[in-house]
C-alpha cells in the first residue's frame, strides 16, 4: 500500500473484499485517487450506513473494483459524525477526480444528510423539491411510516442553456408510450440537442429503507422487485451476499439453475429491447416478430418458475425451483426454435437500410466517456470497454461455462482486442452486441443443461450469519453489473443496511452524453438502445 501506509488505520480481508479503514476522513480523496491510479481500479459503489448506535458514526465505504485478472474489490472506509448540534456531518467530495461520484454524493446527502464538501451540485436528487427540508429517510431515527409534509411552490433548478434560437423541450414524467416515468429537459437549437438533463427518482419507493424492516427471506422477494425484468440478477446478487457472509456452500445444481435462469432473463429482455429498437426506427414487422419470440420466452419462464418474470427462482442457499427432464427438454426446444427464428429476423433487419442507417452513428458514447462515467454492461462493451462481471468476478456456475469465447486462445483475444478498439459506441453497436449475447446465452444454457449435476437445489446447512456481518454480492444482469451490499442486523434474521446499486444507476448519466450529437427524434432510439430501468435507478 506504499504511500497510503500510515493513513490506513486497519485492513480487513474477507474473501475477495479488502476493507481499508482510514485514520481520518480527510484522506478519502487521496486514498480513492491512489486506488484508481496505482491499482487500476474503478469506483463501483459508494455505500453509506448509519452506524451511530453501534459505533457512534456514519460509515462511508467507497467500493472499488480492481481491473484486470484479479477478482478483488477494495473498499475505502471512513467515518464521519455530526461535529456539533444541528450541524450535518460531512466528508470531502471526490467529484473532481471521479465525475461519476456526483450522483452517489447527492444521493447520500438526500438519504443520510451527509454533505460532500466540494460537490458543486447542491440540488436534491432522490427527494424531489416538494419534500420538506431536514428529512433523511435512511437514518436510523427516521420512521419508515412518517408522512412528510409537502412543500409547494419550489421548483427544481434545471441547468439553463441560453443563446439565440435555443429552446427548451420538457418531456415527462408521464410519457406517450407504456414506459416508466422520468423527466427529460432538452435544450435544442432547431432539431439538434445541445443539452439534455434527466430528472429521475419519480418511482422512488423506499426499497432500501423497507428492506431494513423485513426478514431476510422477505427482503429476497423485495430484491426481485427492484426492477421486475431484472429479478433473477438482483435476487442473485442479494443471495450471494448473504451466502458470502455465512460462508455457505450452495449445491452445484442450484448454481447451474441460477445461471440457466439468469441467461433466460437476458434472452427475453434483449429480445424485448431489440423489438423496441425496431419499433422506434419505424419497422413494425421486425418488432412484431421479435415480440413473438419474447412472449415465447416469457411463457417458458412461466412453465419453469411459475412466474412470467422468473420471480421466485432464487432462494438464500440455493433455488426454489427444480428442472425435471421435461422442463429441460422444453427449455432446449424453445430456445432452439427461438434461435432459428431470431437469426432469420436479424438477417432481415440488417438488410433494411431504414433500420441500419438510423442506428449507425446515433447515440454515440465514446470509450473515454464510458470509462469516466464507469458505465457497465452492453453499453460499456459497445464503447470498447472489456467488462463483464460474469468473467471478471466469476460467480454461481459461470466458472464452468465458457462465458466469453473471445478470451479462449491468444489469437481470439488479439482479434477481440482489435475489434474492441474499432467499436464506436453507437446504437448499431449496441444492437449488434445484444444480438450476439442472445446467441451466446442460448449456447450457455445448452452447455449448462448438458452438464447438469444431480444434486440438491437447496443447501442443507443452516445459514450461519453473525450480527452485523457484511459482504458484497454482484451479478451481471442484461443491463450490466448490479452490486448489492448487505449488512445483517443484530438478530441475524433482518437487514441492518441494504445498499443496491444497479446497472441503471451508473448507466443513466450516459444518456445525457449519448444524445449530444443527435436530433430530438432520435432520442427514443438512443434511450431504447441503452435499455435503462427507472425503477432500478430510483429504488
Amino acid at each position, binding site marked *: 500500500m506504499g504511500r497510503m501506509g500510515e493513513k490506513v488505520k486497519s485492513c480487513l480481508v474477507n474473501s475477495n473484499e479488502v476493507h481499508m479503514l482510514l485514520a481520518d476522513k480527510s484522506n478519502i480523496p487521496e486514498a480513492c485517487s491512489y486506488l484508481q491510479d496505482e491499482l487500476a481500479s474503478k469506483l463501483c459503489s459508494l455505500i453509506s450506513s448509519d452506524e451511530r448506535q453501534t459505533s457512534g458514526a456514519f460509515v462511508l465505504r467507497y467500493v472499488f473494483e480492481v481491473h484486470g485478472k484479479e477478482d478483488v474489490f477494495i473498499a475505502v472506509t471512513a467515518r464521519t459524525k455530526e461535529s456539533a448540534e444541528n450541524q450535518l456531518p460531512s466528508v470531502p467530495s471526490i467529484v473532481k477526480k471521479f465525475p461519476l461520484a456526483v450522483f452517489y454524493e447527492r444521493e447520500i446527502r438526500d438519504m443520510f444528510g451527509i454533505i460532500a464538501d466540494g460537490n458543486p451540485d447542491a440540488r436534491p436528487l432522490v427527494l424531489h423539491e416538494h*419534500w420538506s427540508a431536514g428529512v433523511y429517510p435512511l437514518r436510523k431515527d427516521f420512521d419508515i411510516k412518517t408522512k412528510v409534509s409537502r412543500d409547494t411552490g419550489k421548483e427544481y433548478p434545471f441547468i439553463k442553456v441560453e443563446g439565440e434560437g435555443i429552446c427548451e423541450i420538457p418531456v415527462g414524467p408521464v410519457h406517450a408510450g407504456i414506459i416508466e416515468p422520468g423527466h427529460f429537459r432538452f435544450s435544442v437549437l432547431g432539431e439538434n440537442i445541445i443539452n439534455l438533463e434527466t430528472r429521475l427518482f419519480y418511482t422512488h419507493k423506499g426499497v432500501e429503507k423497507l428492506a431494513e424492516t423485513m426478514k431476510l427471506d422477505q427482503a429476497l422477494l423485495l430484491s426481485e422487485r427492484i426492477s421486475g425484468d431484472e429479478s433473477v440478477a438482483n435476487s442473485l446478487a442479494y443471495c450471494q451476499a448473504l451466502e458470502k457472509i455465512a460462508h455457505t456452500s450452495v449445491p452445484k445444481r442450484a448454481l447451474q439453475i441460477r445461471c440457466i435462469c439468469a441467461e433466460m432473463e437476458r434472452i427475453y429482455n434483449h429480445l424485448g429491447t431489440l423489438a423496441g429498437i425496431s419499433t422506434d426506427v419505424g419497422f413494425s414487422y421486425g418488432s412484431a416478430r421479435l415480440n413473438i419470440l419474447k412472449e415465447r420466452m416469457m411463457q417458458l419462464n*412461466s412453465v419453469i418458475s*411459475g*412466474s412470467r418474470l422468473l420471480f421466485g427462482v432464487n432462494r438464500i442457499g440455493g433455488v426454489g425451483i427444480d428442472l425435471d427432464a421435461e422442463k429441460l427438454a422444453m427449455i432446449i426446444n424453445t430456445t432452439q426454435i427461438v434461435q432459428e427464428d431470431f437469426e432469420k429476423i436479424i*438477417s432481415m433487419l*440488417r438488410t433494411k437500410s431504414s433500420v441500419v442507417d438510423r442506428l449507425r452513428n446515433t447515440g454515440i458514447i465514446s470509450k473515454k466517456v464510458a470509462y469516466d462515467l464507469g458505465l457497465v454492461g452492453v453499453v460499456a462493451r459497445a464503447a470498447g470497454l472489456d467488462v463483464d462481471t460474469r468473467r471478471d468476478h466469476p460467480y454461481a456456475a459461470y466458472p464452468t461455462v465458457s462465458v466469453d469465447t473471445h478470451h479462449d486462445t491468444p489469437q481470439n483475444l488479439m482479434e477481440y482486442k482489435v475489434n474492441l478498439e474499432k467499436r464506436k459506441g453507437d446504437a448499431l453497436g449496441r444492437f449488434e452486441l445484444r444480438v450476439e449475447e442472445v446467441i451466446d446465452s442460448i449456447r450457455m444454457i445448452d452447455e449448462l443443461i448438458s452438464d447438469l449435476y444431480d444434486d440438491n437445489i437447496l443447501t442443507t446447512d443452516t445459514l450461519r450469519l453473525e450480527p452485523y456481518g457484511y459482504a458484497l454480492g454482484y451479478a451481471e444482469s442484461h443491463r450490466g453489473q448490479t452490486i448489492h451490499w448487505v449488512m445483517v442486523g443484530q438478530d441475524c434474521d433482518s437487514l441492518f443496511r441494504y445498499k443496491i446499486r444497479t446497472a441503471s444507476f451508473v448507466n443513466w448519466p450516459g444518456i445525457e452524453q449519448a444524445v449530444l450529437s443527435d436530433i430530438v427524434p432520435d432520442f427514443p432510439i438512443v434511450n431504447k438502445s441503452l435499455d435503462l*430501468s427507472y425503477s432500478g435507478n430510483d429504488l
Partner: protein
Amino acid sequence: MICEEIIMSHKKDASGLRNSVDSGDSKHVQTKIMSDIMRDDVETIKDPVNGYTNSQEFRGSITLFDAIPHQDSLDKLCAAKAIETDGRNVRLDLGKCIMCGRCQQAAPDIFLIGSIFETPVKVRQDLIRLSGKLDSQGQKPYEQMGKELKEKTSKILRRSLAIREVDAGSCNGCEVEITALNNAIYDIERFGVHFVASPRHADVLLVTGPASRNMEIALRRTFEAMPDPRIVVAVGACACSGGIFGDTYATTGGIDKVLPVDIYVPGCPPTPQAILYGLLLAVDRIEASKING
C-alpha cells in the same frame, strides 16, 4: 437461393451473425423476406387457457380452504402482509398478495395457489378471501372475453376504447405485461382497445405501482386532464394496495389513496389475460356511469 444460403450459413455458425450481411444480395433477401412473411403462421392465440400460456405452475390466484391454522406465525410469514389470522380463521387480501407461494409451502392445507386469472374486481372488498368461503370462478377463454369486450365497447362508446397508461412507481413488471397485450400473440387492438399518448383522448386510466410520492402530482394531473366518463383501473398488487412496497414515507399505499379506483386487477404482475378481464369490467363501469349520468 443465395439468401437461403445466407441464412443457412448463419445457422451453422452463430458467429457469422456478428458480421452484418448488409452488403449481401439484398434484393434476393428481400424476396426471401416477402415469402417469409407470406408463410408466417397465425401466431395470435385463440384460447390460451388450453395452451401453455397459463401453465399449471403459474401463480395467479389463491384459494383458501377451511382448515384451522396449526401455526400462528402465518401472518408474519407473508412479506406483503396479505394474511391475517385470529387462530381460527384466515383472512387473505388478494389485493396485497405478491404470489410468492410461501404460504402454500408453509400450510398447504389452507392455501392453494392456482393459475386462475379472472381475479379482477370492481370493489376492493371483493379481493378479500375468508377461509370457509370457496370462490367458484370459472375461466373464460381469452377470445371470448375479447369479443365480449369489443361488443360492449362498440355498443356503449360506438368506437374503440382508448387507454392511457401511467406508471406510478411500479417495478416495471406490470409494464412488461401491459406491453405484452400489444404483441401479436395477445393483440389487444383486434378487440378495439388501443393505447393513446394523451390523457385527453383516453377513456381509461391504467395505473401501476404503489403511487409513489414523487409521482402523486403527475398522476393526479393526468387524471384531471381526462374527459368524463373516466375509469381508473389499478393494475397489480402495488396499485391495489401498495403490494410489497406497502404504505411508507415514499409511497401512498395504493392508487385508491390518490384517485377513485373503479377496477382492481390483483397479481404480481397480473397476466395479460387478467388485465384484459379488468378492462372488460371497466367497460361495464362506463356503461353504468352513462346511465347514471
